[in-house]
């Protein structure tokens, strides 16, 4: 059974990539001139002063999309072992289990479609 140690190249790549990003930033920090004007550090908003910060309750329409995604992503993981051990020819129950599983998955999308999640109407106040 391969222990985590076997994957140490991946960790080395992680460290190297970390270094590969931090190094140019350190160089840039050293060799770049610096200025500071009255409004240099203000947030940029097309030249005008912004009205209030950007950390607000952002009414995300995509919350429902996230729910459907979670339902999907976890279930798709079941298909991986099925895919690896899918034998050619022979017993057909594997195909039927695949069929049933995908049919159940598709129900989620059809339900959301019916509920009108996917149509973004114009919000007339």
């Amino acid at each position, binding site marked *: 059974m391969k222990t985590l140690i076997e994957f140490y190249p991946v960790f080395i790549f992680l460290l190297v990539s970390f270094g590969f990003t931090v190094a140019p930033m350190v160089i840039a*920090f*050293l*060799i*770049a*001139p*610096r*200025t*500071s*004007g*009255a*409004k*240099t550090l*203000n947030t*940029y908003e097309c*030249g*005008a*002063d912004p009205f209030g910060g950007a950390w607000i309750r952002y009414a995300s329409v995509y919350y429902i999309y996230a729910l459907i995604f979670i339902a999907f992503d976890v279930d798709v993981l079941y298909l991986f072992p099925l895919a690896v051990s899918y034998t050619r020819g022979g017993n057909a129950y594997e195909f039927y289990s695949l069929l049933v599983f995908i049919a159940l998955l598709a129900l989620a999308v059809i339900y959301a479609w019916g509920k009108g999640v996917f149509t973004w109407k114009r919000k007339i106040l």
Partner: protein
Amino acid sequence: MGKRSFYLETKDPIIKFAMLEKVLDLARANSLWPLQFGLACCAIEMMSTAMARFDMDRFGAGIFRSTPRQADLMIVSGTVTKKMAPLLVTLYEQMPSPKWVLAMGNCAISGGPFVYEGQYNVVEGVDLLVPVDVYVPGCPPRPEGLLEGLMKLEEKITGTRRFPTPEKRW
């Protein structure tokens, strides 16, 4: 507006020696990313300079960045009104440090055709607001004029000129 309303002091980098500065200036001169900031008629001439026929991109200056954070060169192309002045200064200050200003057109240089006694809304010249490096006269200046302004700016940054100046016949 009186004297320039602020003094933007530029602190030197931590590591600074002649050879590095020369290489950096050469690189900066060959990749001046202008800020997408068109005011009036000169903006249309700036656009046609960036288009197929005159093509600023040949000199590496073709990528128009829309945020001042990633721009090096602010081309003030058009009339700066008193309502626009504070915003222009904000945009200039929000640009990171090695930055240059190219005043394009008579309005940006001296208020142009809109200067008469009793005028109440035009800033007479953008150098009252921000330090200007190159002035390109004309109303609007031809795209070749703007390209020549770019060459002048590159000459100012690196000290050497890309193309030989056409010899003066008279």
